[in-house]
Each structure stands twice: as C-alpha cells, then as structure tokens.
C-alpha cells in the first residue's frame, strides 16, 4: 500500500490528539475558511503580542490531513514573529508543490519539523488543498490582525 507515505504516523498522531485545538480569548483576528470542493472548514483566531504570534486557536471540521495540518502548524508558529511564521508557511507551500520529491523534504526538514511529514501528501494533487487550508487561514488572520493593530496605534 502507498497509503503509509501519505498517512505518516506523525500525521495520524496530530489528527487523533490535536495540539492547541479550541477557540480561545483574547484574539486580534478571527477568520473562517472553507474548502469549497469538499466542505472542510476552519475557524482560526490569532493573538499577536508586539510582533510575536502569542496564540493560534481553532476549531475545524474535515479530513485527517486538514486537521493534522492545523495541529502541526500550531506547534510551528506560536512564539514566532509574524513574518517568520509566514515564511515557514511559504516553505510549507514549497513542500506541498514538490510532488513527493524527497530532496525538497530533506532541505526543509529542520524548519518544518513535524509538518515535513506532509511531504507524502504532495504526491496527491487532490489532497494538497487539505493540507494548505490552515496555512491560508493563518495568512489571512495574521494580515487582519496586523492591519487592525496598525489602525489602532
């Protein structure tokens, strides 16, 4: 079976025991993203302190890939600066476009930590959007939080 290449043990662990799940206060921005082709949904909040992502909280409904991706993202971005987190998001995007190329995964392994396990998903074009849903929501929420903060100062 090829399935194991997609459903790495790390992914299934994040799916079954998601990190940081739940919607928390306080927050600076909340977004709701859906994947219109399959109906997967995520509500995501970000709290920013200065330039740092202090918290990401979320509720989601969807497949194991989309849900595990949020959990792995939570581990990666909380405590990072907004620009660092979005940079990591760009690299995750690169991984998702790699069509399973192991060289790309190897290069990004240190930075993406658990999220590098999604390399196998990039071999299945129909599932790439599942893994990217949370990152798109984070990008959107961060932009809103930053623009709100900018407006207030």
């Amino acid at each position, binding site marked *: 079976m090829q399935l194991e290449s997609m459903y790495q043990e790390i992914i299934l662990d994040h799916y079954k025991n998601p990190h940081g799940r739940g919607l928390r206060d306080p927050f600076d921005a909340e977004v709701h993203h859906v994947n219109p082709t*399959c109906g997967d949904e995520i509500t995501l909040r970000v709290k920013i302190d200065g330039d740092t992502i202090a918290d990401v909280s979320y509720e989601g409904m969807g497949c*194991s890939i989309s849900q595990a991706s949020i959990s792995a993202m939570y581990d990666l971005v909380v405590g990072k600066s907004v620009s660092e987190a979005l940079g990591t998001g760009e690299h995750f995007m690169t991984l998702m476009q790699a069509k399973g190329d192991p060289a790309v995964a190897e290069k990004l392994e240190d930075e993406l930590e658990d999220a590098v396990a999604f390399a196998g998903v990039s071999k299945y074009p129909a*599932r790439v959007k599942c893994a990217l849903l949370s990152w798109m929501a984070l990008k959107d929420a961060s932009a809103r939080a930053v623009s709100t903060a900018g407006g207030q100062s």
Partner: protein
Amino acid sequence: MTQTASRPDAGAQRAPLPLDVEVIRADFPILTRTVRDGKRLVYLDSGATSQKPRQVLDAERWFYENVNAAPHRGAHQLAEEATGAYEEARAKIGSFIGAPETEIVFTRNTTEAINLVAYALSNAATAKEPDFRTYAVGQGDEIVVTEMEHHANLLPWQQLCERTGATLRWLGLTDDGRLDLSDLDTVVNERTKLVSVTQQSNILGTINPIAPIVARAREVGALVMVDGAQSVPHQPIDVAELGADFLVFSGHKMLGPTGVGVLWGRYEVLDKLPPFLTGGSMIEVVRMEGSTFMPPPQRFEAGVPMTAQVVGLGAAVDYLQALGMDTVEEHEKALTAYALEKLAEIPGVTVIGPPDTVARGGAISFTVEDIHPHDVGQVLDDLGIAVRVGHHCAWPVVRRYGVPATTRATFYVHTGYDDIDALADGIRAAQKFFGTV
C-alpha cells in the same frame, strides 16, 4: 462469465444480474487499465461521469474522419452529411425519451440547460416580441425547488430571483431521505411560475414522485422542470408520461461524450421563450437595427454546435437501447439491493438516504464512523476503487443530514457484484487502517 455464484461467506443475496457484466466491460477500453500500482479499476463514480464504450468513441472518430463540417451552413457535401448526422442524432435522442426532434435542444450539459431556461425567463421581461413575454418572471412571482437539488438546479434559480425580484421557495426533506410533500399545496401556489425538481437525487439516490408535483403545478398554472441528470441514464423515461414542461440531462453521465447535454421542452412552451445565447445559426433575419430568431430548437443553439459529441451521444443512446433501459434499471436495482445489504453488515457504516430499494436508484452515500469521507476515499483509491467524496454539489443536503460530507458509490451497466465486494472490503480496510474497529 455471469456473476451469479455466491461466495460461501457472503451473507448478502446475489440475485442473477440482468446484464452480462463481463461482456459489457469488454466494450469499455478504460476498464482494461490499472490504477495505483497495477490494481484493477473499480469504477464506482458513474454518477459524476460515466465511462464510454468503444461504440461511442468510434462514432465520434467516424464523424471527424468522414463527415466533419459545420452543420446547418454551407452547401457542400460534407456540410450536408454533417447536418444529416447531427439531425439524425437529435431524432434518435428525442425518441429515447419519447419526444419529437423539434423539442430537443442541445446544450453543453445539464447545468447549461437549466441556465438556458432561467435566463430565458428573466430575458422574457424585456423581450420586444410580446409572445416572448408569456413566461416573464418578476417581483411577486415565486420559483420552487427542493432541498435535495444539485447546485446546478439551485443556483440558476437563486440567481434568477436575484435578477428579477422573484422569491425562491423550496420543499424540504424527511428524515429518511425523501421529499416532504406535506406542504406542497402552500409552497406551490398561485404565485408560483416554475417548479424545478430532481427526478433522482445525485447524493441520496431517492427517486422523487413527479406526478403529484406536476398535478399541483397544473392547478396553479406553473411550469415544471425535471432535472433528469441522474434519472435519464438509469431508467426508462417517457416525457409524455412525465407530464412536465422541461426535462434536462447530460450526455456524459449516460455513456456519451462530455460537452453535450439536452434540454427537452414542450414545443408550445419553447416557442414562447426568448433566446438565452444569441449569435450565428439561431437567426431568421439580421439587420443592423435588430433581428428575428428561428423557431425552436434552433433558436436556442447559437454558434457551431458540438456536432461530434451529439453524434457520440446518439451512439450512446443506441448502446443503451440495445441493452434495454428496463434491463439497465433492473440491473442497478439488483446491485443497489446487494450493496445496501453489504454496507449494512459493516459496523459503523451509515447510509445517508433511503435504506431500501423502494423508489431508489443506485447512488449510495454513506458515512463511516470516525473516518472522514476524504480519508475513506483515499484508502479506496489506494485499492483501485474510484468513488466520489465530499458534498457532491448538494451542500444543503449534507447540511440537512448533519454530516460534513459523504462517500458515494454509483453504479452503471458495467458494475458487477465483484465491484461492490471490493467496496465493502475497502471500507473494512479503511477502518483497519485508521484503527476505528
């Protein structure tokens, strides 16, 4: 080899299948390929699009290699022959549903056929020709659909209402996956201009009673459209018996090519509709100051049509008629009964839709406890089994039944008991893989 022998371990009943699946499979070149590292293709996604028999592919190739020309233009021999082939297919496709060829309009697909009527009804309000205003929809008018509709039979009507100020109303669903007709007489009322309803749900498999809806629509003078995208490919249909004003369906779901669909309309209704798309070949006289249009069906076929695809659809109709639509229907009924039994044997599997074969077709949606449909679909795909996952372009339906999405298996003439056994085994494999059993 016919598939009647029952496996000793199979609890579900295998009635002898009306169609010889092995003989039919030999007609479908794609079924000889393998997927995902050499696995036999188990194609259970005909509801999304059907596979094509060689006879259909040959007809398209024959057209391009021998008679290709733009129909209804030019006087050369090819143009004559292409027009002949195109019109002969129209007559054949008409007779497949008991309609004269003058009532058959070719569109791109079901979606476009529905949009054609929706736009004609809003164009009617501003039509110069008084006859074309007969069915105009405006403020105070109502359009009725059901909660069971594919997005293709919902959004065009939502949009029509937004353009015209009319109100969209709908019939709800019962908990067991059927249309709730208890408030039919209030939802369909004197203000109703058109009722559009699916004959067979693409997600629940439910076959809807059209007669009471038509009867009520007639009492109030409303038009009736039947979405036949999931019924025309799978059961015998006669438009005279149906009693509606419009029937729409797609070629690609009934063994035909993509890019061709059909709008059947009662001639006297079509005759009073203004065009949707305008341009070449739908005109009578064109002047810089204004133009007049051809009678139906040409009025609704602007531009060079999808001629080869229409010829291909004609071949698909020949293929289905040779099998016999009664037989096709019985075949799928036997498969559906078997599949419902097989799925019921698996703990954690819930069918979303009618639980038996009464007024039900072969579209079976289900959920598997604690496994998201995408993940079910992924395991099935790994085993070579193609199913559809998601909301099936019927988002209100999955919302109505409180599930985020479903996995759906659909059957057709080449489907056999072995395909359904593969599905059931695949679901169990998914449960094992995700550790839910």
